[in-house]
């Protein structure tokens, strides 16, 4: 579309806004504009796109000014007025809109004419070795501020969520997730100690525990998140709960290892700009898909699939619709789902290019 219309007085921009579903493909929410620009650079490289990007402000002024559609699509006329708006942009509608506004194009660019999306090499660091917590449904992120660290980037990032009851009554479950930021290409150094989270409160929050320590991990290194779930009561939602996160990471190229302590201020109010984690069923359901092949013949038959999930598995994975998920389909699916570590929205990488 960009190639078809760029010479017809039409300019195209991707608008990069807050991460909508942190954890997908292990991405976590950037803490500042510099980190969000790193996301853009990564996306630009990965999808090999020539389309320029606009980086939204950290409080998502642009997304909010355009009605708060996370996957929205808009066309502005030369006077800057909205002439088309879509809650969910899609290529067919956009092409139809442009044909109405500008005119049809004779030789439409085909997907095969576009550069192939870059697929990053899988990392060799262990993952899937720390069991994930079963978290309550419908948790929402709490407002959180990081205290800038002049010496080190935030290699690992803290995400805090509460159950609806916590926001409604002040008392509920509080989830702390500590996630490595994949853009820094670092891993936990488990020989140097466990991830530790110390919580400090001046009486404004009652906590089940004030010091949280990550699980014992057999592997020397891994990239799994560290998760904690405790009961909490916020007496005052405007007073911060202070969290000190201490961890040791090494870069994948083994050029450095470092222990850092970084500080966050957590408030007992919801922050909708921080997105929602993907439903646990998608990521966990497919995490051990290869292990379901109980007879080891390489294929999955419906009797090997978990009860109640059969139609979902078959619907997602049985590409040739023969009711057997063959080895090639498992391989294809695992690749698409980042080997079970997360759902790839962009699938084969071409989605963003049309």
């Amino acid at each position, binding site marked *: 579309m960009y190639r078809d219309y760029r010479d017809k*007085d039409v*300019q195209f921009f991707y608008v990069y806004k807050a991460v909508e579903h942190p954890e997908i493909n292990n991405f976590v929410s950037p803490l500042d504009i510099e980190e969000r620009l790193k996301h853009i650079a*990564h996306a630009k490289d990965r999808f090999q796109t020539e389309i320029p990007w606009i980086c939204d402000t950290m409080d998502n002024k642009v997304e909010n000014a355009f009605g708060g559609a996370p996957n929205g699509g808009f066309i502005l006329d030369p006077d800057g*007025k909205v002439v088309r708006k879509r809650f969910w942009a899609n290529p067919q509608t956009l092409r139809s809109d442009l044909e109405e506004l*500008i005119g049809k194009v004779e030789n439409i660019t085909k997907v095969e004419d576009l550069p192939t999306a870059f697929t990053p090499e899988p990392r060799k660091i262990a993952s899937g070795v720390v069991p994930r917590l079963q978290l309550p449904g*419908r948790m929402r992120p709490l407002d959180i501020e990081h205290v800038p660290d002049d010496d080190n980037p935030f290699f690992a990032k803290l995400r805090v969520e509460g159950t609806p009851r916590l926001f409604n009554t002040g008392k509920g479950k509080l989830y702390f997730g500590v996630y490595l930021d994949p853009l820094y290409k670092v891993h936990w150094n488990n020989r140097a100690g466990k991830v530790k989270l110390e919580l400090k409160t001046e009486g404004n929050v009652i906590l089940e525990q004030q010091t949280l320590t990550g699980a014992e991990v057999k592997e020397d290194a891994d990239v799994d998140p560290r998760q904690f779930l405790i009961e909490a009561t916020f007496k005052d939602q405007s007073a911060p709960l202070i969290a000190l996160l201490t961890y040791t990471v090494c870069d994948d190229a083994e050029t450095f290892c470092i222990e850092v302590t970084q500080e966050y201020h957590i408030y007992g109010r919801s922050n909708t700009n921080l997105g929602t984690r993907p439903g646990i069923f*998608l990521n966990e359901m497919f995490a051990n898909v290869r292990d379901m092949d109980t007879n080891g013949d390489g294929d999955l038959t419906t009797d090997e699939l978990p009860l109640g999930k059969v139609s979902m598995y078959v619907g997602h994975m049985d590409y040739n619709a023969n009711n057997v998920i063959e080895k090639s389909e498992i391989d294809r699916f695992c690749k698409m789902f980042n080997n079970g570590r997360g759902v790839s929205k962009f699938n084969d990488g071409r989605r963003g290019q049309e």
Partner: protein
Amino acid sequence: MIKSLKFLIVGSLFFVGTYGSAQEADVALARFNEADSDANGSLSLLEFKSYVEAKLPTFEQFDLLVERLDADQDDAISPEEFGGRRDAVKQLIANSIPAPMEFVDEFNLQFSKRKPLVGDGIGDLVAFDENGDELDFASLKGKYTVLNFGCLT
């Protein structure tokens, strides 16, 4: 999102109420039986969850459905909460779930009423270009501009 769920449930009820027939009742029963994996004549929360997860196009919609059922907001759906809406749930399942594009159409309809409306200007708005330099949206005037929102996830 709540509105979309309302649309979904109300739409389902409307369909049954207006166009209900013996054939549709058979389809409804077949779908209910499909969800009732232990064939005991009622849907447990697990059966309901498994079936709806399999039918709903996105996980957010399942969360919304749970939110709707969880009347006392205690993060669990009691038999009373589930049972109190059993007919609606049965009809919801029976009529299947609208295809993703139907959801998109509904979202587009709701979104079309939200500002900025077609014909509105954007006003003063400043963000950043991909190099981190300030970008004033006023500078985009002079050409048609296509804006596509998104992120890596």
